[in-house]
């Protein structure tokens, strides 16, 4: 059950991260921190489809995460969610056809080994 939840969290987090990064890059740097400007920014983000989809994925990931916390250690749950880096790399390669460098494979493999060590 623990590992099933880790899989759900990793999948939902990956989707949420990619959408969030894309949305914020498209928006550009936030410079104005006055209350009025922040209110306008929030209203604009709430209408942004990428942000809305990202928040939906994050909600799924969140409920799976508190379910995981209800039956596993904090020091297991938080690092285990890093499995999303492995998934992101595989998705980037085979779904998005992005060139994945050797260094990035090495990084993802280290994360995978680290997550595997958590099982011991």
């Amino acid at each position, binding site marked *: 059950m623990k590992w099933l939840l880790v899989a759900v969290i990793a999948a939902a987090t990956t989707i949420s991260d990619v959408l969030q990064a894309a949305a914020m*890059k*498209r928006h550009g740097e936030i410079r104005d921190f006055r209350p009025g400007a922040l209110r306008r920014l929030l209203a604009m983000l709430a209408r942004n489809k990428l942000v809305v989809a990202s928040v939906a994925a994050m909600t799924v990931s969140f409920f799976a995460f*508190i379910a995981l916390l209800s039956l596993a250690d*904090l*020091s297991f749950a*938080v690092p285990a969610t890093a499995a999303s880096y492995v998934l992101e*790399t595989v998705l980037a390669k085979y779904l998005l056809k992005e060139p994945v460098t050797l260094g990035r494979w090495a990084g993802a493999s*280290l994360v995978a*080994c680290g997550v*595997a060590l958590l099982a011991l």
Partner: protein
Amino acid sequence: MTSQRQALALKTRFFTFLVVLSGVCGNFSLSWGMRQVGRLVSLSPFAYMRAVFNPWVALGISLLLLWLFSHMTLLSWADLSYVLPVTSIGYVLSALAGRLFLHEEISRWRWAGILLIMAGVALVARTAPHRSGAAS
């Protein structure tokens, strides 16, 4: 120009600190709350309502909302390849919080796993092509 760059560096440092602090405290607070709520695994959203009304879980959610906003704000000017490695210290800090305040037993293997994950995240980020490519 230089003062503008200094202001950006200061802003970056402040939001990075906020992202790490809110993430670690938020996860800790959730973990503390879920220990009080008890085992909860369900596909029904209603089952989670009981958990959401636990004050520690509610505090954790507030802190993770703060995490979300500070993370998004930081990503609006900083590269993901900068944000990922510097915030990956959160894995170690969360484990320390579990060890110190929740009295979790952390085996040597688990510490090794956490350190490998941190190193792996740093390596992924260092070699990652700009995510900005996805947006433009």
